[in-house]
């Protein structure tokens, strides 16, 4: 019997869909029982987590120290909870990438990053070289298996479950050497980039923050989230949390429209799982066309307004 603990990512009492997807991955482990750990200041997120289909128990740890999640503070608590489990999973978002390696080192074990395929209880596939190669890994079954889950590879579980909520007390002393100061989010109107079914992204070619509004307009018309290339973010046309790619977000929308983006390997890493990729670029040799399902060569400044018109706006 494999016992898997999924560490929930949550904010303001709401469990992030990255958790739903990590649970979906955990349920693929043969002969598995899946619990979800919620570290929070109150019960709200635990109550939400209890609805995730397939989850047996929610392990609820409420402490004031978890009002804001700080990896250095939370890691000893997660390491303590891990004692009863064969596997510990967390989403491969900045949340999981930050905390899980710290937990692993406290437990004296390694960690797998970004698992995308489950082939057995200790057998997985994960990407390396920005997704340009896939490694097939057999992990030592004698050791506790910690892994982050590449969320673009899994569909979220539904919220039709009814898990029991267990209160857990932590005896580990939590360090106070790392303190939360503040969080700021750009005011991104429209759907969330990581879970949107449609995404319109703009690149360096937009040329200014003002022109980048063309991307916002098209996105609004399509009910899509807005994304950007690193060059567009670095140039200040778009907020940093909109970056798609190796160092930004890895997304899997049904429709991805790349406008004035050349298609660097690091950008393509972020969109490999998109179902349909549309590329608009004036250079017919741009590498983005190698991965595009539909390519259109031309000047975005004439094509975008035309597209908007034809879409009825």
């Amino acid at each position, binding site marked *: 019997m494999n016992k898997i603990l999924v560490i929930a990512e949550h904010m303001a009492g709401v469990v992030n869909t990255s958790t739903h997807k990590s649970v979906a991955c955990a349920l693929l482990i043969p002969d598995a029982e899946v619990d979800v750990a919620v570290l929070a200041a109150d019960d709200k997120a635990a109550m939400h987590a209890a609805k995730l289909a397939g989850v047996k128990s929610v392990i609820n740890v409420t402490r004031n120290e978890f009002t804001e999640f*700080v990896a250095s503070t939370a890691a000893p608590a997660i390491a303590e909870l891990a004692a009863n489990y064969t596997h510990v999973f967390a989403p491969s978002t900045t949340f999981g990438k930050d905390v899980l390696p710290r937990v692993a080192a406290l437990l004296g074990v390694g960690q797998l990053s970004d698992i995308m395929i489950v082939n057995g209880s200790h057998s997985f596939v994960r990407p390396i070289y920005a997704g340009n190669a896939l*490694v097939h890994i*057999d992990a*030592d079954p004698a050791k506790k298996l910690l892994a982050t889950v590449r969320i673009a590879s899994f569909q979220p579980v539904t919220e039709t479950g009814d898990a029991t909520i267990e209160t857990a007390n932590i005896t580990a002393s939590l360090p106070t050497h*790392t303190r939360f100061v503040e*969080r700021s989010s750009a005011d991104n109107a429209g759907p969330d980039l990581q879970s949107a079914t449609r995404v319109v992204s703009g690149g360096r070619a937009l040329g200014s923050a003002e022109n980048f509004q063309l991307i916002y307009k098209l996105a609004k018309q399509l009910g899509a989230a807005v994304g950007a290339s690193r060059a567009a973010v670095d140039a200040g046309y778009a907020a*940093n949390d909109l970056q798609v790619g190796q160092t930004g977000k890895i997304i899997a929308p*049904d429709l991805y429209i790349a406008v004035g983006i050349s298609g660097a390997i690091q950008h393509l890493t972020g969109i490999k799982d998109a179902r349909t990729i549309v590329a608009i670029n004036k250079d017919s040799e741009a590498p983005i066309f190698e991965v595009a399902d539909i390519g259109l060569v031309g000047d975005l400044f004439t094509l975008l307004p035309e*597209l908007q018109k034809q879409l009825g706006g």
Partner: protein
Amino acid sequence: MSKILVCIKRVVDYNVRIRVKPDGSGVITDNVKMGINPFDEIALEEALRLKERGVASEVVVVSIGPAETQQQLRTALAMGADRALLVEHAYAIEPLTAARVFLKLVEKEAPLLVITGKQAIDDDNGQTGQMLAALWDRPQACFASKVEINGNIAKVTREVDAGLETLELDLPAVITTDLRLNEPRYVKLPEIMKAKKKPLETLTLDALGITASKQFNVTKVTPPPVKQKGVMVKDVTELVATLKQMGSL
């Protein structure tokens, strides 16, 4: 005064198109351009800037890798690091082993700060900094886009999925870097010459009393599935029609 330790890794240059070996035993790295992992280069740049601001007095660059890693350490010295340590090891090691090695170096050097890249662009693990921080029992701030040091406290802004988050850390601590922290300087020829005279010490895992652990066995490496070739459309009308036909609109 205080020291900053920067951990760098020798990796395949980020512009190289990676190919998987036909026998599935790995990726082709023979005769491929190598360089400092881009995120580690940013880590080094930040350390150098902190030194220039008077926050630190010495920047020590450390790496684990084959003998050829000396090339990357020389580049780091040319950028401005004061000295280098190479823990020579011919084979890839798991991040936990790397963290254990760096812990030994940290115990030896007693730095105020360890800065390293948030991930290496070869195996994309993104674990070593956090593991080192855990073993060292010190704070971590990952994905840094801004670092301020005030006495014994660091204020670090991090790039997180929700936007930007700021943490306050008691030093010593570990910081891992994201791309927007800074833009690394170019090395100039005279510095490359000067770097040849800077100290570069070589160590081994054995000498540090560390055995490489192996929890993960790579059974094979495969190329990603190939996408079906797409279609080119001639204008917006055809684009909209094709999208509708595919059920995407």
